[in-house]
């Protein structure tokens, strides 16, 4: 993988700090621009490399806010975030963020394949076009998520589950080390849910780190190494070794 000639941001593509966790936040407070109170109040999270963490909590608990802050979409009020030991924005290509489906203009005239190819742009930067290697990576990602036959379709013609898989395919194409998935199981069909779990397991087996915001742990057995509970913008202390089913019950009570 080559560095871009002209990267989009001034930050160099920094190298990871040895022995640093994939994600570390310390007393993190984040306030949305224009909002009254903070959406995150002093959240400390430590996600070791190569693990998969579930970020659970009721609606409005700050799951999306935490992921957005780590992705660099929201300014940090106080506290800090370190990604592989570096501040946010120091290594854009190492962090992939999977947004909720509503944040994308699905009516845009672009094919599924080209959309997945945009996952390669961070490696290209200004004035460089995707080459054969990039195309191959995008096609492999499409294939892994069962979208090969739909590659030529305009993105708005996909079903909700297919759109979610296309977004995940783009995150895979980015070949990031830390993947932040925001509600990937929201309103998708059972088949898509299974495909996403499968992709998550395969990512973990290749040493990638995942943080997944979800309020549905029903079919997640064996998928998550750890669970972080959020409520009202604060982390709810929970025994690290709490079995997933106990937490699933608790979450079930929240989300009804």
């Amino acid at each position, binding site marked *: 993988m080559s560095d871009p000639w002209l*990267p*989009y*941001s001034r*930050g160099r593509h920094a190298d990871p700090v040895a022995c640093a966790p994939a994600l570390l936040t310390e007393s993190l407070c984040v306030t949305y621009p*224009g909002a009254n109170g903070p959406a995150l109040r002093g959240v400390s999270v430590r996600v070791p490399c190569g693990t998969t963490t579930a970020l659970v909590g009721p609606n409005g608990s700050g799951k999306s806010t935490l992921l957005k802050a780590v*992705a*660099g*979409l929201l300014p940090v009020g106080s506290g800090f975030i370190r990604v592989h030991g570096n501040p946010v*924005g120091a290594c*854009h*290509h190492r*962090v*992939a*963020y999977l*947004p909720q489906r509503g*944040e*994308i*203009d*699905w009516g*845009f*005239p*672009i*094919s599924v394949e*080209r*959309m997945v190819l*945009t996952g390669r*742009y*961070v490696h*290209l930067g*200004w*004035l460089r*076009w*995707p080459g054969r290697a990039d195309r191959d990576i995008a096609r492999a990602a499409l294939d892994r998520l*069962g979208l090969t*036959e*739909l590659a030529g*379709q*305009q*993105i708005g*013609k*996909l*079903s909700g589950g*297919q759109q979610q898989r296309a977004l995940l395919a*783009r995150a895979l194409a980015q070949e990031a080390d830390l993947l932040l998935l925001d509600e990937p199981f929201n309103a998708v069909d059972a*088949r898509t849910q299974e495909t996403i779990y499968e992709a998550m397991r395969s990512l973990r087996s290749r040493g990638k780190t995942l943080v997944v915001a979800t309020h549905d742990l029903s079919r997640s057995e064996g998928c998550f190494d750890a669970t972080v509970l959020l409520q009202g913008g604060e982390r709810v202390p929970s025994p690290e070794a709490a079995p997933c089913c106990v937490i699933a019950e608790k979450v079930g009570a929240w989300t009804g």
Partner: protein
Amino acid sequence: MDWLTEPFRYAFMQHALLAAVLVGITCAVLGVHVVQRRMAFVGDALAHTTLPGLVVAHLFGWSLSLGGLGAALVTALFIGWASKRQAVKEDTAIGVVFTGMFALGVLLMSRTRSYRDLTHMLFGNVLGVTNSDLWFIAGVAVVVLVTLALFHKELELTGFDPTHAEVIGLRGDLMRFLLLGLLALAVVTGIQTVGVILTSALLITPAATAALLTDRMPRRMLLGAVLATASSVAGLTLSYLADTSSGAAIVLSCTAAFVVAFAARSTWQRLRRGAVDPEKTDEPNAVAQAEEASRCN
């Protein structure tokens, strides 16, 4: 067929055709972005705000193109700034400024009592393009088309998914400023051919027609350019034969193409819905079903 080629035996008609085609292609290709990003109002506003710049340049004997360009660039910067602030809604701010600027232009012009020149500014004077106008138009065409090509992937990404762009460090507002700058350039050349009032038609109508017919960006640009060229030829020929305003004839040709495309698309969709064809798989549901079926096996 003589009546078709006859108008273009004159040098002024050849110049007019070249200008109209170059401007038409530039505006149509740029217009694909404008239509997709719902910036139609911005294009119209930019065209109208050039008027005071044109008038001031006219009064002092400067180049009209540069006068118009100056006013358009100032407005483009203002719009880019207004879209980042939330104090007044963006379209409201644009509406206030563009009508104010337009009124200022009319006011200044009424002091000169030269209504013929005002008419040329408002409705264009493609039959009067000079050699230096042509060079300016050609230069703008090259700058706009080359810039759009160089930054296509960034403009595309910030157009449909500004969040991902921001995550990888690509600033959406930067691309918007770039588009606004190109719009300012294109609008100033559009004023040469169809005038201040009708320029936004060149930006919007061919691109909107192409959007009815294809859902790929490069194809829309190509189709928009072809439509703009055809409309320029048809409009100029008609205006020569019927002795009517050339700018209005060009715009009406664009409009006619849109109406035909709209009718064709509606008819085609009705026919397709009526036809029972098991081979057809490009409906979203059919694709989804076929895919689900193949995955079950």
